[in-house]
């Protein structure tokens, strides 16, 4: 005989309150996804439905015309489409890999070892969470010009290694999840710091890797690189796609297809690693 387990309902929840709250939540969720549904619908609309007056929200006869146009248009450009895609993928993958390794190394020593300057450095990093790209972009250009990285892909990849959010999240996660006794046991067994880092710390913080990866992908996939990159072969996908979208009203359908392409990668990555992200964010508070 199967036992049905009833979930206890908390006695201080009124049915009216629940109903009101869930209706409100449903309305707001609809508001949040509205533009995305509109975009996805527009991307599949054939040309005659896009310019219908009065405009319709949902699509009646979905076609793949816009995506085919996208490939045709991009194929006719000076530089082949695959080059833009390759540039963006390279920036994303290289930036993310470097960021995870470098930020993890830094976070490991900040959280588990005490040495002069560690607390000050961490406080400076927490303050740097507040900066915006534009505020630091003007002197950044001067620094990168002095280093000779203007017009190369490293101008976008290497500053992404030092994103403050990654160090902060990783340090908080390591604080909470690597027991000190484990490290002391490893030291007793004769392991040096690098061995402790690779064999003990890194395998324990896998959810945090995935969180750093999603934040890094989110930033780098949309990186326009317009300040630093001038030669056509090194331009990134968002740049090429925004050129197409800005070409005017005849390209409205293609612009919607562009938005769908740009949106799919971060959203899909987020869905895949979501539970790991939530586990990492559970330790991300600023304790004072």
């Amino acid at each position, binding site marked *: 005989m199967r036992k049905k387990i009833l979930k206890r309902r908390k*006695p201080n*929840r009124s049915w009216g309150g629940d109903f009101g709250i869930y209706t409100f939540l449903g309305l*707001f969720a609809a508001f949040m996804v509205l533009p995305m549904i509109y975009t996805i619908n527009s991307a599949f609309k054939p040309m005659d439905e896009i310019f219908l007056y009065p405009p319709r929200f949902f699509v009646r006869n979905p076609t793949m015309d816009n995506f085919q146009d996208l490939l045709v248009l991009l194929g006719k450009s000076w530089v082949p489409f695959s080059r833009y895609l390759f540039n963006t993928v390279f920036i994303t993958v290289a930036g993310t890999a470097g960021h995870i390794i470098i930020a993890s190394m*830094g976070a*490991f*020593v900040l959280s588990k070892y005490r040495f002069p300057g560690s607390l000050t450095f961490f406080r400076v990093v927490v303050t740097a969470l507040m900066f915006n790209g534009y*505020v630091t972009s003007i002197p950044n250009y001067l620094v990168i010009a002095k280093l000779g990285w203007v017009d190369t892909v490293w101008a976008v990849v*290497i500053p992404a290694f030092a994103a403050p959010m990654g160090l902060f999240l990783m340090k908080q996660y390591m604080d909470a999840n690597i027991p000190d006794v484990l490290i002391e046991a490893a030291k007793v067994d004769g392991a040096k710091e690098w061995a402790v880092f690779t064999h003990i710390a890194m395998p324990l913080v896998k959810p945090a890797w995935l969180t750093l990866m999603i934040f890094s992908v989110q930033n780098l996939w949309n990186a326009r690189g317009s300040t630093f990159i001038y030669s056509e072969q090194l331009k990134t996908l968002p740049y090429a796609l925004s050129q197409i979208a800005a070409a005017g009203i005849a390209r409205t359908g293609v612009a919607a297809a562009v938005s769908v392409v740009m949106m799919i990668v971060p*959203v899909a990555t987020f869905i895949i690693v979501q539970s790991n992200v939530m586990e990492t964010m559970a330790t991300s*508070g600023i304790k004072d």
Partner: protein
Amino acid sequence: MSLQRYLARKREFRAYQWKMAKRSKACYLFLAPYGILFITFFVVPVITSLCLSFTYYNILEPPRFIGLQNYINLLLADDVFLIAVKNTFLLALITGPVGYISAFLFAWFINELPRYIRAIAIVMFYAPSLSANMYLMWAYLFSGDAYGLLNAILIELNLIQQPITWLTNPQYMMTVVIIVSLWSSLGAGFLALVAGLQGIDKSMYEAGLIDGIKNRWQELWFITLPNMKSMLMFSAVMSITSAFNVADVPMALTGFPSTDYATHTVVLHLIDYGSIRFEMGYASAIATLLFFTMILCNKLIQKLLRRVGT
């Protein structure tokens, strides 16, 4: 006498620190890649900005020291900057607290849903801030001609006769920018709040029920909020940052510069002087002022948040 003792103790402390530092050489090596990159790309630009703000610098000639002239011009002689400050404060006051409270409210509301529905809800709420240029779709919805979705709906319902130019009319532009900013404001802070709510000890809720907590609002104030202080702090820092750094949304939707400077924000003013007129000294002065304002606001908010729940 005590001054000598103080100096002696300071010297001892420095010697101790030096010995500790020599012992943790490996730590410094580990921190070095991140530290060097961070200092080069985050600390040096801020300090350079501070120094450049006292000079006149267009990239072609070396900087020329002019003292506080930039700040005086900025605060006393620049009308557009005052409009930008007013706009930024309006946006920050509305988007900041409203975004912050709504992030917390949504996190709290979806906390009690079953796991799969909660996962879907999280994706739905976080997706707007994942795809950085989705707000361009709002440009189609709010478009000023009769093809814009909002205009079409209002005309069909016979509420208006002519299409309203939402994005170029100074009366409506601010409202549009506020709506779109609020739409994309559920970012990392929201995720932190959802995760924090999951981590609260369930036995506290049961203890509260036994002690007589009547409804969910009391439970919120007495049990939930005090346990979430660190998450609230993190979310506040993120909210303040994004509230003051509003630049992409007005630039993409309402044009740069906007009609009558109605949605001109401080960061847009900075981009104007920095990337278009190449007056780096002036732009650095704006950046420095913005930076100090944000730090001040952060300190204030942290003081306020320490009292939540007590």
